[in-house]
């Protein structure tokens, strides 16, 4: 099969010849994330997850907005210079990002890719900048433990035992400013993932549900580009958790690629096991905050030269699970290099 688009590399991957640059990142997290192993790296740690608001939803919109404002200031830009804001969150009708965008006044694309939204936003944003449709764009996502918990699961004060495979939704917002000018790191390639469903019906086991999607996108990226794990310093997945990470490694190994030594899962790293997150962190904010606070800054200081960032999402809703549907997964990959 032949692909006619000028920049396509294989079936799912495109190459960004103008290589848009990530010039600034910002992250705001809740108190539990601040006490975690990566606590020192975040720009701001909230004392209280209500953040002075009347509801958790309002708090989430507030720190989403603040993360966007922060990243614009850190990138030495003005709000007027931002062409588009690409963002999303986990709540119905994307209320957190919608209401933040209402205050920001930046042209806005609302995206939903469950926990994969950060890489979806970066993939689309980088393509917009690369194609000359924008000079500067902001990608931002947020999630909040308490808003997600009440939408997807039970009231917070209900005395139930969480299964060992359950994730803990990260409270936090992460933002990245992508520009056509800048000193890197550069977004060089984008691999768009397919929705993969292996029939997992347990909505508390998102790691197993997302692992096949992550493996599928990683393998598609390797096959399209001819690269292997050796070409990257890190292969970063969003929130597969302890068990999903191992399953992904094995699935990729079956196809003849070994990523286990380079595999970094944001959900595993953001909390320490003593914080009782069970499988690990999850939510849009998980991968976005770790990328914004830890990974991109470590590219600026030269610790890492190249990474494949792959946020993973479980595309379920309470309605679909109650109707007995399985949990499909998705993952998009963004290839980031320190030099062009």
């Amino acid at each position, binding site marked *: 099969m032949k692909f006619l688009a000028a920049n396509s590399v294989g079936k799912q991957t495109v190459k960004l010849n103008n290589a848009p640059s990530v010039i600034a990142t910002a992250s705001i997290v809740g108190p539990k994330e601040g006490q975690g192993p990566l606590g020192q790296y975040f720009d701001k740690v909230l004392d209280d997850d209500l953040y002075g608001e009347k509801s958790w939803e309002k708090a989430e919109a507030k720190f989403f907005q603040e993360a966007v404002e922060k990243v614009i200031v850190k990138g030495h830009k003005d709000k007027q210079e931002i062409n588009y804001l690409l963002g999303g969150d986990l709540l119905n009708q994307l209320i957190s990002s919608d209401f933040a965008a209402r205050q920001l006044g930046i042209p806005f694309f609302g995206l939903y890719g469950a926990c994969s939204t950060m890489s979806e936003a970066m993939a689309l944003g980088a393509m917009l900048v690369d194609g000359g449709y924008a000079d500067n764009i902001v990608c931002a996502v947020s999630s909040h433990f308490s808003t997600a918990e009440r939408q997807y699961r039970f009231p917070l004060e*209900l*005395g*139930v035992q*969480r299964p*060992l495979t359950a994730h803990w939704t990260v409270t936090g917002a992460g933002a990245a400013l992508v520009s056509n000018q800048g000193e890197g790191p550069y977004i060089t390639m984008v691999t768009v993932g397919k929705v993969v469903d292996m029939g997992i019906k347990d909505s508390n086991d998102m790691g197993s549900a997302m692992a096949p999607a992550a493996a599928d996108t990683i393998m598609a990226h390797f096959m399209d580009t001819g690269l292997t794990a050796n070409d990257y310093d890190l292969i970063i997945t969003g929130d597969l958790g302890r068990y999903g990470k191992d*399953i992904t490694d*094995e699935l990729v190994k079956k196809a003849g690629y070994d990523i286990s030594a380079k595999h970094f899962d944001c959900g595993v790293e953001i909390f320490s096991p003593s914080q009782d997150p069970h499988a690990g962190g999850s939510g849009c904010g998980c991968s976005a905050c770790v990328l914004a606070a830890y990974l991109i800054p470590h590219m600026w200081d030269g610790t890492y030269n190249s990474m494949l960032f792959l946020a993973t999402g479980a595309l379920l809703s309470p309605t679909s699970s109650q109707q007995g549907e399985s949990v499909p997964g998705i993952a998009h990959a963004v290839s980031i290099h320190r030099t062009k």
Partner: protein
Amino acid sequence: MKKKALYAKENYRGQCTAIKQQTINRRKDVDYVDAVKQHQQEEYQQFIKDKIPKPNLLRNAIAAFVVGGLICDVGQFISNFGQNYFNLNKDDTSAFTAIVLVFLGALLTGLGIYDRIGRFAGAGSVVPITGFANSIVSPAMEFKREGYVLGVGAKMFIIAGPVLVYGFSSSVALGILHLLFSR
């Protein structure tokens, strides 16, 4: 002329058969793809079976037994207290015990303690009547921000509702059976 019409008819029939065959083949393809997909899914579910952690049933059962037992001890204490100090009769004692336990469950939920007990004890704190109080008070607290009518009022029984519906239904069914057969 007649020959031509006959030929057209034959040709038309032939086309129909071909389309029918194509449809059957396509359906077979779809079935085949579905079968492969199902096989892959089953294989994957088998593959992950020993990779996902199993809950420690013994630990959970012991925690549930101990905490559930302690809640029942508290209930017995309240019951004895009612009998001895307020001189309540049998019916009043059980009502008194239930009222005090529901109050305690609601209070501990409001103070943010009951969810921690539940995390440790599981069914041990869900099954006693304190768990029932917890299941009503926790959504009432959670949905207060959506207002008293559509929030608290509508969502209060989101967890306990099924228990009430099927509890009432089965008691009605049992009552009818009693009426019919116990004469």
